[in-house]
């Protein structure tokens, strides 16, 4: 609607039509504008015939019509939501998966980098909070943005009466993991039971660990003679202690298997035993007193070398993570068992 010299000032109707159609694609804009004009004119005529005063009729018709953008959306069939029911569950699952997998990795990486660089503890903690937070915000934003774009595409096509039937959309819709019966999580007592396969694995693991504690003296042969990996001075306390802890864990595992499931006391004892194992080991590892100096000398490893130190830090953190997950398993099973029994008693 161009106004040249001598044209009247835009009426309320002109301004309304402009507001309603300015966000519509050029191809459809003229058509929607014409229809709106007809509709407004008809409504105006009807009201005038009913006796409404000509001064107020335009305003009252337009007011009753309502928000011009909403009226335009009704005409074009545009979706008035960011992400609709079709893609919402997929979006939500994806965001949850991303946050659960990526953010812990970033936290780990920040901690590792901080430790390796020997940064002050305050800076390390801050970077382990601030940077993962930024990453999380980016993850949520870009995922939401992508899905919002898909939703716009879809509703735009649907508004023209031809919903998109692209195979890609159907794939996105089913989250690249079409929901099947298999995805249902087990509930009830089965969830807390110590499975036979887990039991055998735990026993084997414990036995192998105990065997390694003893056999590490004989495994590495350098220059014709076996060189112990662990400083032999530790035979006075640490290594026998580790064997005891392994025996305790083995006994606990057998008891739990015979009883059928993890309980509060068994999970706690198992956790304490794991701590009793990991704490002294990490203590000596960080102090550099765990490894046999003779081994370092024979293998040509310089303990002060930067690369060696980095590997040491990574191994140490890896051991901590493994110990943590070993504690976590029984505790989670015991927790589920408590929750389940509350319901059944």
């Amino acid at each position, binding site marked *: 609607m161009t106004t040249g010299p001598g044209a009247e000032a835009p009426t309320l109707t002109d301004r309304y039509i402009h507001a309603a159609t300015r966000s519509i694609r050029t191809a459809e804009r003229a058509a929607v504008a*014409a*229809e709106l004009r*007809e*509709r407004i*004119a*008809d*409504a105006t*005529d*009807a009201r005038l015939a009913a006796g409404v005063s000509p001064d107020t009729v335009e305003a009252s018709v337009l007011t009753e*019509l*309502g928000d011009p953008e909403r*009226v335009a959306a*009704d*005409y074009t*069939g545009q979706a008035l939501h960011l992400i609709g029911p079709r893609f919402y569950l997929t979006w939500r699952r994806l965001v949850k998966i991303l946050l659960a997998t990526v953010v812990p990795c970033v936290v780990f990486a920040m901690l590792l980098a901080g430790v390796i660089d020997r940064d002050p503890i305050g800076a390390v903690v801050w970077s382990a909070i601030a940077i993962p937070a930024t990453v999380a915000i980016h993850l949520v934003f870009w995922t939401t943005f992508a899905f919002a774009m898909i939703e716009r595409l879809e509703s735009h096509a649907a508004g*023209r*009466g031809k919903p998109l039937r692209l195979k890609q959309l159907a794939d996105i819709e089913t989250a690249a993991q079409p929901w099947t019966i298999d995805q249902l999580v087990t509930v009830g007592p089965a969830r807390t039971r110590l499975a036979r396969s887990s039991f055998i694995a735990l026993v084997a693991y414990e036995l192998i660990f105990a065997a390694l504690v003893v056999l590490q003296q004989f495994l590495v042969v350098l220059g014709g003679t076996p060189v112990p990996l662990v400083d032999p001075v530790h035979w006075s306390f640490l290594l026998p202690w580790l064997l005891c802890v392994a025996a305790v864990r083995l006994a606990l595992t057998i008891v739990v298997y015979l009883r059928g499931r993890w309980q509060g006391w068994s999970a706690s004892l198992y956790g304490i035993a794991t701590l009793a194992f990991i704490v002294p080991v990490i203590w000596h590892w960080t102090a550099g007193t765990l490894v046999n100096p003779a081994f370092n000398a024979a293998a040509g490893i310089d303990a002060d070398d930067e690369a060696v130190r980095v590997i040491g830090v990574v191994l140490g953190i890896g051991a901590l993570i493994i110990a943590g997950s070993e504690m976590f398993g029984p505790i989670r099973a015991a927790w589920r068992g408590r929750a389940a029994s509350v319901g059944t008693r």
Partner: protein
Amino acid sequence: MWHMSDDTSEGHLQELRRGTIVLACLIRLRQPGYGYSLLEALDDYGFKVDANTLYPLLRRLEQQGYLTSEWNTEESRPRKFYRTSTAGERLAATLLTDWDALSASLRRIQDES
């Protein structure tokens, strides 16, 4: 509480009427008509439609091919006339059959309950 049940029952009433408007339009527009005249005619027959519902509905039916439209420029101002197409006739027939079937089912379920 009275107010709340008013809102929910209004919602259910709207649901009940929603589908019939399409059928009513397709039948009425066997004779060409334009937006406002259709609105008044439907009101006379007892179909309570909102203008905000009817106009976009006509547009959508046209996009889906069930109505044809034509701008009539003879009168004082241009008017868009809608008319049921052949596809629209077929759809109307299908909807009517379904409507009769539903009506009969409702009567049966009332009689037997």
